[in-house]
């Protein structure tokens, strides 16, 4: 129950006792007028004292038990004084009237107390509801926003409103100076004071108390406030002080109400938990990164031992056989053995290049020296070089006419295209066609694609295809394993050149890897050209 209109005329500025007296007087006056009207002709009710219960209920509802009792006693005296013979005295002639009046007093006090208690309960329930709503809102903000940093501004806004504070900010403890996580008035530096109300909390059920603490140096900020009181609540988790929740409000408004204090205390707990969670999550991420890097190293060693040992084994075996005097090699056999060794060395050499590229990408030491190149200039040398290793397979090159030149590092692009083509050649059956295409979807970009008609990989693995040592590279028939480095190098190199690499299903049926590159303008024609 509330009288907003009374608030508006400045009731808030008065003390609660004065207010009770004023309201009590007013309702009693109205009550008396009603009683007088009822007992006078033409109604002439012999005893209208029951009407006085209304002021008692109002007083009880608005101001509690004591106001209700006061009003009851006042009504009792007024009725006696004004309506019981002899009039204008507190004396009572008829002993029956005495009894009636005492009965009235008793009932009035009882009803007043009941009303007061009920209304207090209702108010408390409303306060609790508001408080839990505020708390719920704050928990939600903290839980649903990915980072504490993101949630904190909304939290302080909400707290300032619900705890009726002029300003709220969160200061996190750091080894140097406190870090302001959020502030409802972030445009101004947080103020400080020489005395700060600190919320003293006990572990038990005892309510928290605001304790005035004289802080030697000014805490909380640079500018000192005098017209406002400064409140702070410790944010603590696992026995560690993580920071303080600060609040500021005008000194004359007094101490925060109990529910506001409770809200601030609970919000500080929530915030402390959120801070702690974020700290732990950070630690967990670091642990995860370390774990993954360890896994990567293991995979690398695995890949190296496979990718390197296989050709090395083949070279070793061939060379050993060549050196064996017991074998009568024909000239043709010797030549083939030599070619085997050459092919295996080329394979090893490719792995070394990829490993070097991968480590340069990883360490950030890769610097692309970008220059504008016509696409055919880039594509044709690679195709010419690899065609002999394609065993006469279909290797179609379809470059659109009038492609703009692309901005690439020619050496890196060579590695990219070599990797893609070798990948396609190695991982698809001999009958599957391979196509290299290039087109310019818009003047700022050229899309180069290497696609094949092989069995392809499952679309669900596309996003992971460019990861180092990703599984799909090992999926194909023949039990081939190892590699896994090629496509990750492709992506690393393409990104170093400002481009993008992505995998899709090819119209040919297999895998299509698209490389989009930054295009530039053709240089002007000769000034002296006719």
């Amino acid at each position, binding site marked *: 129950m509330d009288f907003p209109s009374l608030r508006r005329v400045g009731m808030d500025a008065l003390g609660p006792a004065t207010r009770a007296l004023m309201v009590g007087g007013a309702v009693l006056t109205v009550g008396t007028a009603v009683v007088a009207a009822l007992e006078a002709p033409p109604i002439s009710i012999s005893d209208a004292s029951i009407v006085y219960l209304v002021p008692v209920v109002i007083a009880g509802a608005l101001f509690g038990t004591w106001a209700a009792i006061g009003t009851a006693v006042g009504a009792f005296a007024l009725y006696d004084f004004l309506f019981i013979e002899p009039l204008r005295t507190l004396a009572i002639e008829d002993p029956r009237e005495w009894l009636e009046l005492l009965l009235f007093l008793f009932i009035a006090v009882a009803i007043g107390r009941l009303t007061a208690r009920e209304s207090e309960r209702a108010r408390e329930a409303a306060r609790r509801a508001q408080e839990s709503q505020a708390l719920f809102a704050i928990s939600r903000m903290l839980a649903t926003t990915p980072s504490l940093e993101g949630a904190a501004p909304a939290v302080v806004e909400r707290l300032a409103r619900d705890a009726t504070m002029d300003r709220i900010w969160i200061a996190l403890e750091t080894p140097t100076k406190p870090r302001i996580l959020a502030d409802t008035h972030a445009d101004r530096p947080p103020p400080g004071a020489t005395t700060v109300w600190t919320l003293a909390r006990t572990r038990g059920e005892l309510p928290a108390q605001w304790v005035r603490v004289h802080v030697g140096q000014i805490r909380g900020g640079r500018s000192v406030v005098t017209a406002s009181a400064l409140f702070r609540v410790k944010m603590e988790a696992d026995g560690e002080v993580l920071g303080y929740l600060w609040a500021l409000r005008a000194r004359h408004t007094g101490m925060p109400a109990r529910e506001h204090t409770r809200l601030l205390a609970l919000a500080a707990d929530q915030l402390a938990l959120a801070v702690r969670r974020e700290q732990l999550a950070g630690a967990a991420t670091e642990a995860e990164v370390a774990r993954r890097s360890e896994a990567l190293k293991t995979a690398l060693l695995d890949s190296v031992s496979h990718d390197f040992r296989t050709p090395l084994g083949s070279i070793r075996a061939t060379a050993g056989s060549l050196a064996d005097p017991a074998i009568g090699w024909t000239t043709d056999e010797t030549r083939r053995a030599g070619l085997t060794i050459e092919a295996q060395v080329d394979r090893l*050499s490719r792995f070394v290049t990829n490993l070097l590229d991968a480590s340069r990408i990883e360490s950030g030491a890769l610097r692309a020296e970008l220059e*504008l190149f016509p696409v055919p200039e880039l594509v044709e040398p690679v195709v010419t070089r690899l065609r002999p290793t394609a065993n006469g397979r279909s290797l179609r090159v379809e470059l659109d006419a009038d492609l703009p*030149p692309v901005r690439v590092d*020619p050496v890196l692009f060579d590695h990219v295209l070599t990797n893609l083509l070798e990948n396609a050649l190695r991982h698809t059956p001999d009958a599957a066609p391979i196509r290299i295409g290039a087109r310019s979807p818009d003047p700022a970009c050229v899309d180069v694609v290497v696609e094949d008609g092989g069995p392809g990989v499952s679309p669900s693995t596309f996003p992971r295809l460019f990861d180092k040592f990703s599984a799909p590279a090992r999926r194909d028939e023949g039990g081939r394993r190892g590699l896994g480095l090629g496509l990750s190098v492709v992506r690393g190199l393409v990104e170093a050149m400002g481009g993008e690499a992505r995998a899709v299903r090819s119209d040919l049926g297999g895998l299509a890897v698209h490389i989009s590159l930054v295009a530039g303008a053709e*240089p002007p024609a000769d000034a002296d050209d006719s």
Partner: protein
Amino acid sequence: MTASAQILIVEDDEPTRRSVVVNLSAHGYSLEEAAGGADALRRWDARRPDLVILDLGLPDIDGPAVIRRIRREATTPILILSARGEERDKVTALESGADDYVTKPFGMAELRARIGALLRRAGGSSVDADGIVTLGAVRLDAARRTATVGGAPVELTPREYELLKVLLSHPGRLLTRGRLLRAVWGTAYSEEGHYLHVYVSRLRRKLAAADPSGQTRDLIVAEPGVGYRIREVDAARS
């Protein structure tokens, strides 16, 4: 003719050196070996070989220093052996005066092809007395500034003509990007690599269009990050 040529190989890795010596000897060259830069220069002074194969990663003397020392005295072809991923070193060596390079690990057939091309170039310019440069089907008439492929005329802009001329005048030799730019566009353009790539591309297209036989298809070979060379038509056929 070239088969009797004397070659100095400078390489500190013994197995590599041995293999090259065995192979080239079998192909009729006579070889001189050096394991370091100082040794190499001594042998160079004593024997004046017809060609030098030089490993860039020598233990004692910096590769380019050896190249410059040789260049001060002669135009003897120098072929560089270099490890992968050292494009800058290759460019430095070429700008110091080296003629070409092969990357380790290299194939012997490739090495011999390069040696053959360099020795032929050293044997004499392919420009004849009338100022006509001929390479396979391609003919440049310096006096008229015209080009033909297999007799069919090719319409070239002045810069395209210049570029083709510079390339054809150094068959078998790897010309760095900077060198080509300076020769064709002038020193102010030595950093404008994209001019070169685009012009080479146009040149290739025009030559291919004039030559349905496809002989000129791979005439100009790109060495990514380094420069261009003219593929030796004759060497490739032999």
